[in-house]
């Protein structure tokens, strides 16, 4: 089925909007009234038709505008895409995985013809048509990883597996939750997650690393993570913090419902066949607090989670300054009734 792509912006006038269907399929992450870190990893083996889990890489109504926003960010700062030289095989692995997945899952929008190493790629939404030789980077306008991730929603990191660890040696990061690829590239799994509070102490990263080192080809996994963002802004990198930092002080009781967004990351991990690397895809979804509260279950649950969120997690996620305003607004939607376990909207 063809997707109707929006023409919208993620900066300046912020015309980003979710359709009703966009809100309904939002991957709301809270199944219970309290939130704590866990190794909440499950197989990424499809999901209900229309859900964000249905396909390997989810393409939605924001696709065209998100790719345009990524291009703007890269134009301003090419360092948002980095790849250490030993990652070239992994780059091709990623290009193959994404192209074959998109062409299989969205035949109305993407097409791939493979004739030995001679490939022909058609991206209809972005109006791209490209013949190239697989394995020969000179036949593409960008390096293979940058080429394909400029045409895919979400951020990407490629992890190199060596010495019993996973190293963040490549990345396309233009819509991150306040972490810097330029600074973090080349880090080990635990160094990279160093700033995350609490999770180290409860062994989350030990277990996650052990699990991911054994990740198998053809058996990708997924988990959800979340934070909040003021304005539907994708580029909330430390690099541009001076541009968006002040937004956190701009939240008022009058604008909170439209201005503050829950930002959920659908994180998926794929073993790569030739390089033995791991592709870490961080697919972000934004929905305003007001849109989410249209589903009373979600409004109440979000209220309880934020109200009871430990202070160190709130600080890490950068919510401290405006969280009270959000909680106050959401409290008006919460009658205190018990909610059944689960993330479903109704």
């Amino acid at each position, binding site marked *: 089925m063809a997707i109707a792509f929006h023409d919208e912006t993620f900066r300046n006038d912020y015309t980003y909007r979710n359709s009703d269907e966009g809100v309904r399929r939002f991957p709301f992450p809270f199944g219970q009234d309290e939130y704590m870190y866990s190794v909440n990893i499950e197989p990424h083996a499809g999901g209900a038709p229309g859900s964000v889990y249905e396909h390997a890489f989810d393409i939605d109504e924001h696709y065209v505008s998100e790719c345009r926003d990524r291009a703007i960010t890269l134009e301003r700062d090419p360092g948002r895409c980095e790849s250490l030289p*030993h*990652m070239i*095989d992994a780059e091709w692995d990623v290009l193959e995985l994404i192209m074959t997945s998109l062409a299989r899952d969205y035949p109305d929008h993407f097409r791939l013809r*493979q004739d030995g*190493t001679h490939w022909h790629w058609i991206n209809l939404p972005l109006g791209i048509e490209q013949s190239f030789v*697989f*394995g020969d980077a000179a036949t593409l306008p960008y390096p293979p990883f940058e080429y394909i991730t400029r045409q895919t929603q979400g951020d990407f990191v490629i992890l*190199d*597996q*060596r*010495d019993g660890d996973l190293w963040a040696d490549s990345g396309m990061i233009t819509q991150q939750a306040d972490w810097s690829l330029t600074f973090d590239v080349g880090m080990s799994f635990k160094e990279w997650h160093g700033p995350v509070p609490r999770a180290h102490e409860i062994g989350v990263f030990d277990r996650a690393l*052990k699990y991911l080192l*054994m990740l*198998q*080809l*053809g*058996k990708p996994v997924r988990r959800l993570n979340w934070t909040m963002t003021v304005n539907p802004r994708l580029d909330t990198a430390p690099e541009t913090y001076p541009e968006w930092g002040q937004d956190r002080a701009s939240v008022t009781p009058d604008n909170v419902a439209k201005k503050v967004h829950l930002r959920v990351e659908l994180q998926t991990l794929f073993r790569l*066949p*030739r*390089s*033995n690397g791991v592709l870490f895809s961080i697919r972000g979804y934004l929905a305003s607090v007001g849109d989410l509260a249209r589903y009373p279950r979600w409004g109440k649950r979000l209220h309880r989670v934020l109200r009871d969120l430990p202070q160190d997690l709130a600080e890490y996620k950068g919510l401290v300054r405006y969280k009270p305003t959000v909680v106050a607004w959401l409290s008006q939607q919460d009658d205190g009734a018990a909610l059944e376990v689960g993330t479903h909207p109704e």
Partner: protein
Amino acid sequence: MLSLPLPGGIRRNPYSLVGDPHDRRKWRIAVRRQEQSRGGSAWLHESAREGQPLKVSMPANLFPMARLARHHILIAGGIGVTPIVSHARELARLGHSFEVHYAHRAPEFGVLVDELRQLAGGDVYCYVASRNEMLDFRQLLAERPLGTHAYLCGPQGMVENFHQVARDMGWPDTHVHSERFLAPPPGEAFAVKLARSGREVAVPGDQSMLEALEAAGAEPPFLCRGGACGQCETEVIACDSAFQHNDLFLSQPERDSGRKIMPCVSRIAGGCITINL
């Protein structure tokens, strides 16, 4: 991983891919007929027919290449040459500096040597036992520049010797890589109790614990079936006999704890073991 329809039931055996990884139309393996075959290699040599469909699992890489190395020394012992050929192909394609050392019993056992020569040119060195040519690890590893990585695939004794010599010569474990061909060693028959279902499964002496569990319909996780990957790590609740750990995965403290076993290659010396499955 090939599933072979042996007369006594399905046997799952892992084999190394030796073909070109960029060829998406075929996967190629090399199988030496083992004199003391547990059935797999004999079946492939005698009973497998062209056109016969076999179930294959997705490949797994348990012998990865160090992509940051400045020079690679690839060493093969016997049929251990199969993953070495794949590495040589990758290194040749990437234009990295490498050399190959290949020990085998007699000239007729030097399978794939022509292919290696094509890939590595003059940097292929053969050591043929029937000609009294010996591979001396001490000589091989001496005076190697910083950043050299050495890889070996061969029989267990060769692997142990290789690691010992490398350690003696100051090589850190990060630069020394081996893939052992580890068929599950036979032993005494014993019983496995499954704590969650209360069932009991008998493990014959010539079958691995994992194979016996699968034959009984249990579906424990697995990947390499060679004691290396850690996927089948199983919690032990009780054991009235001695452990025979044959894996490469569990640490000594984990072994000493008596709380873990890798059922793909490890067993107990008779008696009964209760596992959390």
